[in-house]
């Protein structure tokens, strides 16, 4: 499994296709082999049975023809006269009888003519290979003919040959002798049977082959391969010289013990079309495998190329180029992946952009508003509230604390300040060493930016209490801060060269807000707001002292109001202390 997981996509595709193709191929081959070989066996078996029947009817037909011929010949008066000579020892002349036999052989085209007396003693034989005067009364078919006095046929072995012999009585008018006619069953007969039926045929006993359509060395390999069970003969497979033959051994009713006609058809030859088919199927399989290899390579290439391009794009992005996009020219899952990657890069780029533009401290809704384009960044005039916060006595504190503690103290404070500003939807514009500048109403315009700014200022003061408790527990003296707020119209937009562009506001209210913060020291107030802010506040805030104070860089004095806190709920109805 690990090897599989570690192997390449190309290998996996190829292996998957190959396994599928091989499975289909093997199943098809196996099924074809099974079905076709069964069918071939059945067909061949039927053919052999048919051949067997044809063979038997041919043999019967030959026997019938022999019977007819011999019966006709036995009725010939000249034959009767010739055979009757044996009654007279003076006139009995075996040579004449044999020559008559030769004449009969030629007349009706048989290979053997024997003549006997009425008791079955041989009178003459043609060809003259049998001993005259010996009794052949026990030789089939003469023994049956002697009994029945009718024409009888049988297959017999005479010398080395196999003969189909008919014995027919010669009547004059009683039986005066018998005429035996024989036709050889030789290779020519077997060859003729093969020509008629298409099957190889052999006449044999377990010990010898009498006649066969086979020639050459295979002839000597023939045998009735297995003991034949009783009942109708059944086909079996015999291996001859490496070729399989479906064989049917049909017993022949003969005086020769265990004589069979072995009918054979080549099983392998019959299966040849199957093997040709299987060869073609294998070829198709190999072509399919090659195709699977090519498809695997091309499919894998189709996946690997865009994947590599994507990986390359990822590396580019990894190196910091957030403007790089992967090429997407496809609609499939790979394309989806590439598009998702591009979207991810776009997202990263936007985030980077926001971070670069607004700094880290911008609230989520503001960021979304900017990204949605609801807030134009091209520069605009906006009514905003500006908040400045400062640590009182910071110079003295910085001399008293070690740098590490100083920074920790600052960071603890700023964490709370940023939280308080963002809680009111403001944006921390910049840190000024020991202080913070925050905007309300920019970049997103807000109708209640004054109240938000004041609530943020109160929030900062409120959170400072907790910070001071913490600091004091660390042995640091409590911080004192001043917060100044002012509102007015500013120009807002992206400021700075390309690499360092950031969102910012410029205008007189910014300066004045800083001046208001500076006044907190003079008045020993924590929160001071300009009268422009105060004019926008509802009754929910508890205001303190008011003063008209001169400020640097400004001809006219500034009217400021101290914010003490939130109006208590039960004092809501009371007029403010302005």
């Amino acid at each position: 499994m690990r090897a599989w997981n570690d192997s390449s996509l190309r290998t996996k595709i190829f292996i998957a296709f190959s396994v599928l193709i091989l499975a289909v191929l093997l199943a098809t081959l196996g099924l074809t082999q099974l079905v076709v070989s069964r069918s071939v066996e059945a067909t061949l078996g039927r053919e052999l049975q048919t051949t067997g029947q044809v063979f038997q009817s041919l043999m019967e037909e030959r026997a019938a023809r022999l019977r007819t011929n011999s019966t006709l010949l036995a009725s010939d008066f000249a034959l009767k006269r010739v055979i009757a000579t044996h009654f007279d020892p003076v006139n009995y002349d075996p040579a004449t009888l044999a020559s008559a036999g030769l004449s009969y052989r030629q007349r009706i085209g048989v290979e053997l003519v024997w003549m006997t007396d009425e008791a079955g003693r041989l009178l003459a034989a043609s060809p003259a290979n049998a001993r005259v005067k010996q009794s052949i009364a026990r030789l089939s078919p003469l023994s049956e003919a002697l009994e029945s006095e009718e024409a009888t046929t049988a297959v017999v072995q005479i010398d080395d040959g196999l003969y189909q012999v008919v014995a027919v009585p010669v009547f004059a008018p009683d039986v005066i002798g018998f005429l035996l006619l024989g036709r050889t069953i030789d290779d020519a007969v077997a060859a003729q049977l093969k020509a008629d039926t298409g099957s190889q045929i052999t006449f044999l006993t377990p010990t010898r082959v009498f006649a066969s359509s086979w020639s050459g060395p295979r002839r000597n390999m023939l045998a009735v391969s297995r003991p034949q069970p009783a009942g109708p003969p059944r086909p079996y497979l015999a291996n001859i010289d490496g070729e399989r033959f479906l064989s049917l051994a049909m017993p022949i009713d003969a005086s020769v013990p265990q004589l069979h006609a072995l009918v054979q058809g080549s099983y392998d030859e019959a299966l040849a079309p199957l093997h040709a088919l299987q060869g073609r199927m294998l070829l198709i399989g190999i072509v399919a495998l090659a195709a699977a290899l090519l498809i695997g390579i091309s499919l894998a290439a189709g996946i690997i190329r865009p994947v590599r391009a994507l990986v390359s794009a990822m590396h580019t992005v990894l190196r910091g180029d957030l403007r790089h996009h992967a090429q997407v020219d496809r609609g499939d899952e790979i394309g989806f992946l590439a598009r998702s990657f591009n979207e991810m890069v776009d997202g990263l780029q936007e985030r980077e952009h926001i971070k670069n533009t607004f700094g880290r401290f911008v609230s989520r809704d503001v960021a979304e508003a900017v990204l949605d384009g609801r807030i134009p960044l091209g520069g605009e005039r906006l009514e905003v509230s500006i908040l400045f916060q400062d640590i009182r006595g910071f110079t003295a504190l910085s001399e008293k604390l070690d740098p590490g503690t100083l920074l920790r103290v600052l960071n603890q404070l700023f964490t709370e300040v940023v939280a308080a500003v963002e809680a009111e939807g403001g944006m921390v514009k910049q840190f000024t060493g020991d202080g913070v500048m925050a905007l309300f109403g920019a970049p997103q315009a807000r109708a209640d930016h004054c109240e938000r700014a004041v609530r943020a200022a109160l929030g900062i003061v409120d959170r400072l209490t907790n910070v001071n408790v913490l600091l004091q527990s660390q042995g640091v003296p409590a911080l004192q801060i001043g917060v100044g707020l002012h509102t007015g119209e500013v120009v807002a937009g992206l400021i700075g060269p390309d690499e360092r562009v950031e969102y910012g506001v410029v205008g007189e209210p910014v300066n004045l807000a800083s001046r208001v913060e500076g006044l907190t020291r003079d008045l020993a107030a924590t929160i001071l707001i300009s009268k422009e802010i105060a004019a926008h506040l509802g009754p929910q805030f508890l205001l303190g002292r008011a003063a008209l104070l001169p400020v640097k860089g400004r001809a006219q004095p500034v009217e400021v109001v101290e914010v003490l806190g939130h109006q208590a709920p039960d004092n809501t109805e009371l007029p403010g202390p302005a």
Partner: protein
Amino acid sequence: MHRHNYQRILFVAAALLLVRPAAAEPSISGTVTGADGKGIADAVVFVLAPTPPAASHVAPQVVDQIGKAFVPELLPVVVGTLVRFPNHDQIHHHVYSFSPAKTFELPLYKGEDAPPVLFDKVGVVKIGCNIHDWMAGIILVLPTPHFTVTDPEGRFTLRDLPAGTYTLSAWHALSKLKPEDSAQSVQLSQDAAQVAFTLSLSAARPRRAMHGARVEP
């Protein structure tokens, strides 16, 4: 067949007339039965011994051919008998025999012109027709004029024998026995003697050349 019987009756009557002077002498009668006890018809019973000296004159006999059959199909004769083979059919016949006792041939002929054949040797002569395979007959050539043929019940009577001791034999076409094998000695005095023969016959199978098994319809 009527004609056949008629002729046979004529023949027997003529024979009786010829032996009339001896009619008063005693006779031998008896039966020929098979192994099953049933009488055997058409068996020939004859005197095997003693054989009388050859007669100077023997009456000629006839085997007719009527309806493509020999009439009679069985004819016992004494040796030295001339037998004529008239053909009373409207077609030719070709009578022959290859039997050792008498080989002869009467090539294709019609009517009564065929020369008589002399049966001068004791034995069984089987006759046939070269044209009609089913035609078959037997001329049984005997060494004695004293013979008879059993009736359908297997009974026979031998007459015209002087008193004396005789060896009798029974023969049948289907019997495998030689005449000597069935021989029986009979003492014939003034009274009639009785003899019983038992023959075992081979099965009479329908042979194509005999008894009309394939006779033309």
